[in-house]
Every structure is written in structure tokens, then in C-alpha cells.
């Protein structure tokens, strides 16, 4: 079984400041990792994914994430946020083999203030 922990339920930040959203996971098998964003009253949109290779992955809207196997972490970063980045962000994992379902964290609300 897998579990995902997003330690921060809310992260307030000023516009143009950097931000890091933390994600830690637990799994007995190797996993793929994802970050999704959810805007109000919308479904989830894929920001980025880690499948293999370079541990630093770049996604849409200027976001990037780094996979750290030893610390079982996959933190999301952006060097300079915009008001439009205000949304809920979810970290998710799925096993590399077998069950295809995503296991999500509880989400982090990013609030960008002017």
C-alpha cells in the first residue's frame, strides 16, 4: 500500500516570492510520482510527473519538483509565484507495476497575496 503526506495544509505567500510545497510518500514498491493542481470548481490538471531518469523534473506554469529517493520526498517549487497560481495542489503516487490507482495527499492550499 502507498500513502502520501502533504505537511502543509495552507501556504500563504506574496506575489513574486518563491514557494515550496512539501510532499513525502511511503511505499513498499517503486512508484511513479505526480503533482496535480485544482482550481475552484474544476477537475485536476497534471503539473508534472516523475517516471525515471533525472530527479529534477520541470512542469507547466514554471513549476518544478525534485525526487529524493532516500528521503522519499517529491517537493514542488516555483521561483516566483503569480496571483493566478492560487489553487489547491495535490501530490500523488502510483505503483510502477500492478494497481493503477493514484493515491493522493490531502492537498496544500497555495494562497498568493498581492
Amino acid at each position, binding site marked *: 500500500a502507498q500513502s502520501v503526506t502533504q505537511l502543509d495544509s495552507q501556504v500563504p505567500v506574496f506575489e513574486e516570492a518563491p514557494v515550496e510545497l512539501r510532499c513525502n510518500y511511503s511505499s513498499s514498491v517503486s512508484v*511513479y510520482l505526480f503533482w496535480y493542481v485544482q482550481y475552484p470548481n474544476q*477537475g*485536476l490538471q*497534471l503539473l508534472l*510527473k516523475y517516471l525515471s531518469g533525472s530527479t529534477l523534473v520541470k512542469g507547466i506554469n514554471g513549476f518544478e519538483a525534485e525526487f529524493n529517493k532516500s528521503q522519499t520526498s517529491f517537493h514542488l517549487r516555483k521561483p516566483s509565484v503569480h496571483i493566478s497560481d492560487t489553487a489547491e495542489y495535490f501530490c500523488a503516487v502510483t505503483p510502477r507495476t500492478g494497481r*493503477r*490507482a493514484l493515491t*493522493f495527499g490531502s*492537498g496544500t492550499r497555495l494562497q498568493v497575496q498581492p
Partner: protein
Amino acid sequence: GAGVSQSPRYKVAKRGQDVALRCDPISGHVSLFWYQQALGQGPEFLTYFQNEAQLDKSGLPSDRFFAERPEGSVSTLKIQRTQQEDSAVYLCASSGRTGGYEQYFGPGTRLTVT
């Protein structure tokens, strides 16, 4: 192209009523998933189809929940005798043969049981 669509977007049901939620996946996607998202939480897996075969229904919370995908395209999630605890957003996602396990989500159906 068209994304995943879901209908209705909002549904209010009286306790004890049956409801049916529809999902139209991206054309050609063989995999289809249903998730339940309670308020303030991350999505939780309900069930998974590959074409018309329901390969995993381990997340369905009770025998009141039933899902089908008879022709391997459109899927319906049915909830019988709705209870207040069924109030949530129901998300549908589809995935193609990309090998990357990316799931593309619809906007969800918000079910409120009164």
C-alpha cells in the same frame, strides 16, 4: 481535443434516492477511473476499468455503489439509497496507452445528499 466530461455537474438528492453519474472519457482512452473527493480532502480511488472490464473495485465504500462501462467508453457510477456521507465530488479520469500512467480528470460531479 475534447477532454473528459462529466454530467451532471451538480446533483442534489434526498436521502434514500438513487443517483447516476455519467463520465465521457477522452476518445480512445482504454483506462477509466472513478474517485471520490470529500470536502477539504484529496481524491480517493473508487474503481478502475480497462475497456469494459472492471479490474479493480476495491475502493467502493459499500454495495450501494455500482459502476459500469458496458461498451468500453462511457461509464456510469450509480449510488443506491444515498446517505448524507455520500456527499462529495465524484471525479472521473481516463488514461491512454502512454505508458506514463497519466490520468486526465474531468470537472467532477458535486453530489449533495439532503
